[in-house]
């Protein structure tokens, strides 16, 4: 019984206080992040989801997920399913191939069978959300492509192994491919599939 209660508590807490306006503000931040790949953004909302890494991941789920978007999460605790159902109407799926959004925790691995979209409908691909340790230090990349004036630099600490190889393979699929959102606590950096990702020295 106490078990059930705590599951219920966990599923009721951690949502937006003012869903309409907080979702709008969070979406604008995400849109800005997606429009300017590599730019760093910070979410304000005090939200938390059992099994998601931090406020940024929880904000993204609250802003974009609903009954039309199955969610995959590595090591999802049962409470996450209840939390998603209560706050967003989204359902958890155990099959990455069905996911519209995939959440990966720090040090987690990227599943290799997420939907990549088709040549005719490249939009039917998943958005991959990966928690990292932080930005500004760690592995350095030079980014170019739509949304970037020339090029910009990004340093990320705590990326999954083989991330560079994954990015290169993903970029080669264009216009198919995954759109990646890196999160670190409250911070967000988007790396849409259109971004060129060049390892740089120093």
């Amino acid at each position, binding site marked *: 019984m106490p078990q059930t209660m705590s599951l219920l508590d966990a599923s009721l807490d951690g949502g937006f206080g003012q869903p309409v306006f907080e979702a709008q503000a969070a979406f604008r931040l995400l849109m800005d992040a997606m429009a300017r790949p590599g730019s760093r953004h910070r979410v304000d909302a005090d939200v938390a989801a059992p099994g998601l890494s931090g406020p940024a991941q929880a904000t993204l789920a609250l802003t974009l997920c*609903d009954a039309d978007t199955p969610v995959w999460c590595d090591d999802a605790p049962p409470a996450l399913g209840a939390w998603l159902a209560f706050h967003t109407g989204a359902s958890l799926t155990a099959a990455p191939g069905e996911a519209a959004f995939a959440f990966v925790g720090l040090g987690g691995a990227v599943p290799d069978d997420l939907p990549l979209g088709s040549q005719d409908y490249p*939009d039917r691909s998943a958005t991959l959300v990966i928690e990292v340790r932080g930005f500004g230090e760690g592995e350095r990349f030079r980014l170019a492509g*739509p949304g970037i004036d020339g090029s910009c630099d990004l340093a990320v600490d705590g990326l999954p192994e083989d991330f560079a190889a994954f990015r290169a393979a993903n970029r080669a699929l264009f216009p198919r491919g995954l759109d990646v959102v890196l999160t670190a606590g409250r911070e967000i950096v988007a790396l849409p599939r259109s971004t060129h990702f060049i390892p740089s020295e120093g």
Partner: protein
Amino acid sequence: MNAATYNFAYLDEQTKRMIRRAILKALAIPGYQVPFAAREMPMPYGWGTGGVQVTAAVIGPGDVLKVIDQGADDTTNAVSIRAFFRKVAGVATTTHTAEATVIQTRHRIPEYPLKEGQILVYQVPIPEPLRFLEPRETETRVMHGLEDYGLMHVKLYEDIAHHGRIATAYAYPVKVAGRYVMDPSPIPKFDNPKMTMSPALQLFGAGREKRIYAVPPYTEVKSLDFEDHPFEVQTFNEPCALCGARNVYLDEVVLDDRGGRMFVCSDTDNCESRRTGTGAQS
């Protein structure tokens, strides 16, 4: 049934989320038309329901909205859409391009250069640039998938053969980030060069055709042309009769029935700012 029961910015949250997801996909695949389940809006299809849905999905209480039709803030449909958002979202509105955070437009890009952080929302009637060459969606979708734009080049080339030049004056097709051929909406080709490497974010909404597409800031937007027939824009021989501006798009105003006419700025805000010396102007 009364207005008070409608959600902020009219659309329900689920619809906004669906549109927001489509916008993010559109940004990730610049120039690709993302299908979305457009809703009926309380204004007719053709009046800008696509643009209105996009604006409703992005706008927040802190935004300042400008709406133009034919470049002008005071055309009846621009007035009507502005009033709609004032009513359902309570947002501040402006006619000054430089003050706006969100600009919804039909058929023009403002003359005053847009800046980072601004969002330009285009109303789009027929989002498919290949539609008049191939009416079937099932066919054009495959062409985009294969990046097979031969039909478009043949059409432009036939123009040159018949008329000595490319005979498209508005809705002039562009290629975005070297991949997708895109309809820039029915703006005069005069405005096409403003789209490339713009610091502003450009979103396109087609309500009846149920498509959303986007051009992120700092993205190459190239008007299709041929080496021996490069893309050209319209030039006007005379300046605006009201403000004297050159290198702006002009409307031809018929003054009488004896051939009398004058040319005045299409962008009314820019024209007025130049004449009164207020606000930012190009």
